[in-house]
């Protein structure tokens, strides 16, 4: 874990990043006790002025004539689409652990869901091989997402999010190489 001070911080920041990706209104994001770092700071700041962050969330991720920060892993495949192989793979991972996304109408390979699941795997003390396997399958790709987000984001919350994800992916890329 090259960029994280400890396991707890990693879990908290990963889960926090997942929430930021899943919730457009920063006031609905629960910053866990003990969460530290730029992303947690930016969430707290955004909660004080939520309108600008919410507008930015819509612009970056939902805007029908906006930018291309797609939230789904299948869109970053060689043949971009929704509900591609990454969706099925993610669903398989979730089900092996008795879980399914709450909303069946949303693709399972949403980066926010993937980060939450990854955090929960670590939290549950799953073997490191398992955690690395999931990262290889479903986290490493997010470096592309982070690069795009870094390029397009204007609000500090999402710039911090891009850096956080970039850091996680960088760390996981290293793990993969091992």
């Amino acid at each position, binding site marked *: 874990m090259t960029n994280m001070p400890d396991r707890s911080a990693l879990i908290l920041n990963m889960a926090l990043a997942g929430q930021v990706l899943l919730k457009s209104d920063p006031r609905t994001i629960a910053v866990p006790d003990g969460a530290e770092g730029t992303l947690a700071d930016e969430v707290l700041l955004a909660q004080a002025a939520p309108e600008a962050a919410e507008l930015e969330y819509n612009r970056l991720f939902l*805007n029908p004539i906006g930018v291309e920060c797609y939230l789904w892993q299948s869109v970053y495949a060689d043949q971009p689409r929704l509900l591609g192989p990454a969706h099925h793979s993610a669903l398989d991972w979730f089900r092996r652990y*008795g879980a399914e996304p709450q909303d069946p109408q949303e693709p399972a390979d949403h980066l926010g869901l993937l980060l939450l699941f990854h955090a929960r795997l670590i939290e549950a003390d799953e073997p490191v091989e398992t955690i690395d396997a999931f990262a290889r399958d479903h986290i490493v790709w997010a470096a592309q997402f982070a690069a795009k987000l870094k390029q397009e984001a204007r609000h500090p919350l999402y710039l911090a999010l891009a850096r956080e994800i970039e850091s996680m992916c960088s760390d996981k890329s290293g793990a993969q190489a091992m």
Partner: protein
Amino acid sequence: MSISRRNLFRLSGAAGAGLAAAPPVQAFEDFFQPARSVYADMKTVVSACGTCSPACGMLARTKDGVIQFIDGLPGDAHSNGRLCGKGAAGAGFLYDPDRLKYPMKRTNPRKGFDEDPGFVRITWTEALDTIAAKITHYKTNFGAESLMFVTLPSPDPWLRFMRSIGVVNRIDHRDECFQTDMVVLRHTTGGKTWCNDFANSKYILLFGWDILAKAKLVYANGILDARDNGAKVVHFSPTYTATSRASSEWHNIRPGSDLAVALAMINVIVSENLYNKSFVDSFTNFAQFETQIRTHFAEYTPAWAETLSDVPAAVITRIAREFAASNASIAPSHKKTLCANYNNATQLVHAIAILNILAGTIDRPGGRYFPRTHSVPGMDAVYPPPAYPAPTGRRVDGRDKLPHAAAVDAGIFSTTADGMLNKFPGMIKFAMWRDYTTLAFPDPPSMEKAMQSVEFSVVYDFLPTDTASLADIVLPGTVNFETSDIMVRDYNARFPQSLARSVVVPPMFEVRSIGFVALELGKRLAPDYFKASDGSWINLNTLLDERTRRAGLGENFADFASKGIVEAPAPFVPRTTFPTVGGTNKCQIYVPAFETGNAEPLPKWRPKRHQPDATFPYYYMTYIPAVHRRNTSQNNAVLHEMMSENEALINPKLAARLNLKDGQLLLIRSRAGQIELKAKFTEMIRDDSVLVAHGFGHRSRLLSKSRGKGARDGDVIPYAKIDDFVATRNFGAASCIMDAVVNLTPL
């Protein structure tokens, strides 16, 4: 890798101990639930293709609610068990990452393509409440004429909604498609425009229609079957197409002169008494108007037609004689063809109708026939509505000056920009677009300029079209895989063969059907029209069940869906009465009703709208390529890969005169506007013309594959004016899409 199965839910016992010492990731529980199943759910679903209108049978295989493969439905007589390439690529619409996903509203009041609308996600309730409030506001303060709905008049709940609030201005694209045929056929044969028994034809006469590449598989199968059976296929077209290649002979006709050839053929058949005397005497009004008919067509000789069409008189005469001599001849007219799109198209389809009548093949084997379908009741039959308010107000498209077009509820795309910009500026305050974009209009920049004066607009679509850029609210729509319906199928309908369009996969994200939108807006604005007799709200599923039951297709829709197709094979019994308007059960060659209403009872020669001149010396034509569906498929991953941009197709001889090189950028300029495209040399077009594919030049930033690819063909096509239609007797309101002339400058 072997992975032990655990349960990650903190409260589910087994995992609890393992998690006790870990920091909580509470959000996990917010977004995950205990799994309902472990293994992938595999299904095979019978449904109907929705890429275009014939609704070919489709077999879809799904895993976990995701389509894995789609194929034609074996045993489906309608489509011979096949899907065309566009149909097979249909899942690309469903899984397009760019598709609209949630209702959105604009937060930036400034409108323009260079403005960021600042869309934010809202709930369906907020969206529908806002739309309902805006409709009420504008209708109350400016009358129903201030509302414009850009949509086809279907499905039933949507039509009921528009009627219930007294919509005056509903417009659609049919003036660019088969509207002229609708106007003419109700008077001449009473038949439907797209039932052609090609498979049993012996002589097929095609004016301009690239029937094979247009990829209505139903027709393509029929044409190829006919060829196999020894039929002769004659194709008149300014471009050599897939249909030309499959034809027995192809004639490189001058653009806009099809009417001259058709009139001359009638001249030959009538003057030489070659018509099917038995049919004509028994089932037409020929005898009643014989003097007028013979006199009228006498001047349209093959020699006269040759001077206009470049088709030799001897060839016209020969083809006319062959057409009349065959006992199973057919001349169809149909969508996005030259027939529909020249200013003289109404006269042309009237002439084509006369050719079919003279051949005596109306509702006869090998001819144009009436579809044999199940009788499926509409919403009004199941839930009779209160009387609808009479629509009052001005028509933005000027349709009231063309009563024969009004009689088929035409809504004219080509004249709408003129209405909004010049005739009735500021009249339209509210616009709701459903599955249309400004690309579908001639001169899209003018339509976009007109739209900027609209105070509030809504777009319902499955993709973020260019029009969405100007919208105040965007509603995400379903595609065919996400909806249910009864498909009666009237393209290949020698006997009834209805197909259940079943939901293949559940709707993604928050997309909703237009039926849902109609019902919810109806509840808010016209509740009496959306209640059953017991006072409860109409339920769309109950409506579908009841329509199914009354049509005899099953006990309910689920029962029908379990069967897939319901057929009622029966011998084809030719009609002896023809339900023409004012025709006393006979086909009408001379149409008395066309003596009024800015029409003409027999088709006269009328030139196309614009002729080449010194300033604009070349013909400009557009086409829909085989791999695309109008302007809606360019972002489909598969179809985009097959054809991602358009080019200017030009004959090498003309290119040489222009000193133009293959691949060089070419400026195409008309009186309406200009586009730039790469030149592509082809011998398959006349050397006085340029040909451009329709559907490209999207600008919406989130159409990630198609944006900025190619150019909009419509930018070169002038919008039309209703008074010009009146003056030139374009009484079917043909859109003049093919009438532009241009000059060409290498860049």
